[in-house]
C-alpha cells in the first residue's frame, strides 16, 4: 500500500461522502465531476489505465451533460 494509493483512497472516500451530503443539485453535479476525477486517479494508481480512461471520459463528458440538462429542464419547467 504505497502512500499515493492511501491518499487516492482517502480522497475517493471523502469525495463520495461529500457528493452524497451535498443536497443542491448544481453543486452536486460539480462535486460529482470531482468525484469522478478522484476515481480516475485511484484507478490509475491501481494499475488500471483502461478503466481510468473510461471513468475520465464518462465523468468528464457524459455525466455533466446529462445531469446539467436534467437540472435545467427541471428548473426551467417548474415555477421555482
Amino acid at each position, binding site marked *: *500500500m504505497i502512500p499515493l*494509493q*492511501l491518499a487516492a*483512497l482517502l480522497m*475517493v*472516500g471523502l469525495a*463520495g*461522502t461529500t*457528493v*452524497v*451530503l*451535498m*443536497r443542491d*443539485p448544481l453543486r*452536486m*453535479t460539480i462535486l*460529482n465531476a470531482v*468525484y469522478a476525477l478522484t*476515481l480516475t486517479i*485511484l*484507478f490509475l494508481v*491501481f*494499475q*488500471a*489505465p*483502461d*478503466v481510468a480512461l*473510461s*471513468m475520465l471520459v*464518462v465523468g468528464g463528458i*457524459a*455525466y455533466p451533460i*446529462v*445531469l446539467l440538462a*436534467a*437540472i435545467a*429542464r*427541471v428548473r426551467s*419547467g*417548474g*415555477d421555482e
Partner: protein
Amino acid sequence: MSYLPYIVAAWLFVVGLYGIVTSRNLIHLAVCLTVTQSSTYVLLLAIGYKHRATAPIFYGVPVGSRAVDPVVQALTLTDVVVSVTVVALILALTVDIHRDAKTVDPDEIEAFRG
C-alpha cells in the same frame, strides 16, 4: 492497512444507500445511486491489484512480467460506460415526473397509496 480499499468500498456502498433513503431530490438520488455503483468498481479493482505489478498492457513490457488481474478491469470498464445510460434513463423518468407532478421530491409524489 491492507484492507482499507475494501473498507472504503463498503463505506461508499452504505453512504450511497443513505443518500438514496434521505434524498429530497430525484436528481440527487440518481447521483447517490452512481456512488453506490462506484463502490463495486473500487472493490473489483482493489481485489485484482498486486503489489509491484504493472498494468496488463504488454506494449514495450515483456510478456512474462508480473501484471495485475485483467479480468476485473474488463468487467469494470464496460460497466462504467453502460451505467451512464441507466442513470440517464432514471433522469428521463425524473424529467417526466417533474412535468406531470411539478415536484422532484420522492416523498411528495402522490401517484398511489397502499
